[in-house]
């Protein structure tokens, strides 16, 4: 039962602390950005020299979080900002036991640090982490020119140091509830992996980026739910009810989508007046817009990586 390869805690298990509901008064953090404003991204390549490519990605903390950081009042953080590190090892020969493959074999691995989320994560990958890995693999497989490395493998490992919340901590899980935070994490993973692959100088057909959009019905001051609004790059902690959300992996110069993940009910949603698009069309358009926004940051990071590698054949990835 106890994990013999790790140091275990008390055999009876422990409970996370329960806080006296005192300072909930501070309330749900409010979105300070315009609906189509994105959070700033910090993306840097080449921080892990032993890997063939690496990238570190961080979202800008939301207004409420940075306020809580500068003048701490409560021990409960209002929201959190994604922080992750991505490494690429390879292309390298496949292990002896593997069967022949004419293409580059892509392996993706996403793992949360135990302290990444509001509840402590286990050391062994759970289903959501496996799920993220599969989504990421689909997003990247369409981008890499896999025929150039027969009999080779490429390992992409992502460690999430801080994840996005799925909802505001004060909310009880309700019918609208879904792991919305995971979608933001996936978008971050795609962008970071893309930078790391370019940093490893693996041939790609385009620079793929991730973007998230969501249909949100925020409560107005009167407590009446207004008509759902399309928001880009949503922080789930800032919204009472997310109706549906969508994450895409998008290649801007080819205008292609390699991965699309849509969650929630968007078909019955009628948007504001004057917008005749169906709910999911609007969502996908929104997510693509968000991905376009991330692309400028990614291009800058890749340029930086190319400059660092200068003298060697670079720019293979920036077609």
């Amino acid at each position, binding site marked *: 039962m106890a994990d*013999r*390869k*790790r*140091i*275990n805690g008390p055999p009876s298990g422990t409970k996370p602390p329960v806080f006296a509901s005192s300072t909930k008064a501070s309330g749900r953090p409010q979105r300070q950005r315009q609906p189509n404003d994105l959070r700033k991204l910090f993306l840097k390549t080449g921080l892990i020299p032993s890997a063939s490519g690496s990238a570190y990605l961080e979202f800008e903390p939301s207004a409420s979080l940075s306020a809580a950081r500068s003048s701490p009042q409560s021990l409960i953080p209002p929201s959190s900002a994604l922080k992750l590190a991505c490494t690429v090892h390879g292309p390298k020969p496949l*292990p*002896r036991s593997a069967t022949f493959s004419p293409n580059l074999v892509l392996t993706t691995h996403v793992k949360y640090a135990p302290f990444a989320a509001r509840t402590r994560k286990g050391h062994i990958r759970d289903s959501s982490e496996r799920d993220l890995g599969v989504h990421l693999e689909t997003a990247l497989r369409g981008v890499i020119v896999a025929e150039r490395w027969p009999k080779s493998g490429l390992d992409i490992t992502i460690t999430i140091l801080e994840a996005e919340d799925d909802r505001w901590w004060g909310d009880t899980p309700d019918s609208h509830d879904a792991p919305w935070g995971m979608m933001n994490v996936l978008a971050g993973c795609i962008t970071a992996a893309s930078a790391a692959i370019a940093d490893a100088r693996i041939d790609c057909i385009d620079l793929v980026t991730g973007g998230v959009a969501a249909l949100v019905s925020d409560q107005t001051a009167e407590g009446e739910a207004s008509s759902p609004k399309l928001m880009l790059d949503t922080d789930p902690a800032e919204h009472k009810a997310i109706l549906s959300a969508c994450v895409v992996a998008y290649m801007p110069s080819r205008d292609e989508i390699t991965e699309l993940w849509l969650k929630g009910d968007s078909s019955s949603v009628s948007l504001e007046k004057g917008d005749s698009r169906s709910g999911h069309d609007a969502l996908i358009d929104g997510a693509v817009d968000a991905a376009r926004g991330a692309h400028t940051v990614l291009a800058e990071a890749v340029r930086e990586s190319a400059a660092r590698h200068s003298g060697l054949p670079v720019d293979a990835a920036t077609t």
Partner: protein
Amino acid sequence: MVGPNVTLTPLSRADGSASYQCPSTGSNILGSVNAPVELPGRRDALKPEEATVEVFVKPGTAPAGVGERYVEGIIKTMISRLILGREKGYPRRGVVITLAIVGGQSARRGDSYLTLLPALLNTSLLALLSASVPMSMTFSATSLAVTSTGDILREPTAEVASSAASVHVLAFSSKGHLLLNESQGAFDLDTWDNVRERALAICRGTASYGSDGDVTMSVDVDGQPLEGTIREAVEDQVHRDYAWSIDAV
């Protein structure tokens, strides 16, 4: 002080084995060595020009855990430096040392294994000798505890060690080199120098120190040096094994 109780080759199926019982700590270790053996399934990890040394420590009552991995690492680092892994027949093969703690106390979680380490090291040496694995030198190891009043105690039990200010494990080669030092707990280097001197006396005797009056005292306290005990155990075994040849002469 009563010396350790040593038996060579108690196991008939292993290439070499030894059992070692330390009366003062109560630890009782049974070690076996298989060498050189093929290590199937690990062909990629094998070094092309050297033998691969593997050490397994099995605690008496529980399955092996993180603490055992750590002490295995210590033993492996030390032993691999002494084994002549490039001798004929050894490269690309394995030397597998298995040490089972059959008596005495097992280490607790987070315990650093220091009280058991000398017995484990001495057992592995004897088992290696019993398996005739070529080595560049032999060694002997001991543990010492320094109490908060500054007294140095030889081979402390786990209880004594946990209340001591610091615990030290030292191993000396047959040529007087300090091969291993594991010290834990607060101490300063002057204390450590005393510990080293005492440990050297325990392991190798004090003959090399000249004929000082005090020194002969300490020989009485520590009894026969450990190295001598190990040497005699091997000599006795060789004598028994070759009795037919000696008698024939």
